[in-house]
């Protein structure tokens, strides 16, 4: 199994400079690599979204050392309600869909006003679907709030 390289010489009495490339080791290497990569291939690419638990029973309960802005995004059937201490900003649904765009804008405004604030609580009611919660947390992460807690709306104290 070889491939020859023909330089066109060798016709005028000179020694031929044609060379045969031995491709057997190269094909062996390729075959082994393909076999190994096919066996170890990961076809389903999954990832994770981090969330902490606070206000769920005794676990994860900690008291802040000093008075800080308490930021809570309440998710209910009517839409979102962004609560920053005493200020509330309801974000109603657009038809049947939640308005993630406006939520992102509101959270970005809050982040710009409080750049050191990194945590936000997502308080959900019982009937809210998991997909809505994930998209809400994703919106909060996009607005540069990396520390997200998922809590029950009943335990949010609002």
């Amino acid at each position, binding site marked *: 199994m070889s491939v020859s390289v023909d330089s066109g010489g060798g016709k005028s009495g000179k020694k031929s400079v044609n060379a045969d490339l031995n491709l057997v080791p190269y094909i062996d290497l390729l075959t082994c690599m393909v076999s190994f990569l096919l066996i170890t291939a990961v076809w389903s690419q999954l990832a994770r979204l981090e969330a902490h638990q606070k206000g769920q029973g005794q676990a994860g309960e900690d008291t802040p050392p000093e008075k800080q802005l308490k930021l809570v995004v309440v998710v209910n059937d009517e839409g979102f309600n962004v609560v920053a201490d005493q200020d509330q900003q309801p974000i109603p649904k657009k038809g049947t869909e939640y308005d993630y765009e406006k939520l992102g804008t509101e959270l970005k405004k809050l982040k710009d006003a409080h750049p050191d604030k990194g945590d936000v609580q997502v308080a959900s009611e019982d009937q809210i679907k998991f997909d809505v919660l*994930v998209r809400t947390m994703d919106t909060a992460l996009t607005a540069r709030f990396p520390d997200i807690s998922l809590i029950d709306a009943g335990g949010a104290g609002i």
Partner: protein
Amino acid sequence: MPIKPAHPHLYHSVTLEVAKAKLSHAGRKSLDAPLNLVAYIDMMTMLVIFLLMSFSATGEILFVQKNIVLPNAQNWAELERAPVIGVSKDVVTLDGSQVATADDLMKDSNTGDFKITELHDKLVTLKNNYKLLHPGEDFNGIAIIQSDKGVEFKVLKKIMYSAAVAGYQNVNFAVVPKTKAAGGPAE
């Protein structure tokens, strides 16, 4: 002089060049055929490049369970090895074994206790096993919830509560990574 098996031959005295050529196969076309391997090597090289690009050193940590459709997320992180709690619309599993049914979880608790006993006990066992196997390491308390996108928070909060009581306070949700403009996992 070596002994040779008998074969057709001509005596030196015979000067028939045509017959000589016939007996020594000199007049026939060679039976060796060259194989064109260029296309084969090209294909193998392309295959290796594709497989190397999709190679993941961490391996397959999470298998997508049937009846579970995962939500998409833009801000994601790489998976870590942790107990996997699967939540479909019908059943709740821990590392593949059933620990509760969704019907049980949808019922309102009379006592107000959200704990799922079987899930809690198995998670405590896993935590104790981890501590025995890794005596010098801190327990990170990470559990992965692989939930269907249509599951209600009422079910999830009971699972999260059970995990928190068992010592798993850092809950990660399995998602399908969605490409974003910046690309790459979130820090």
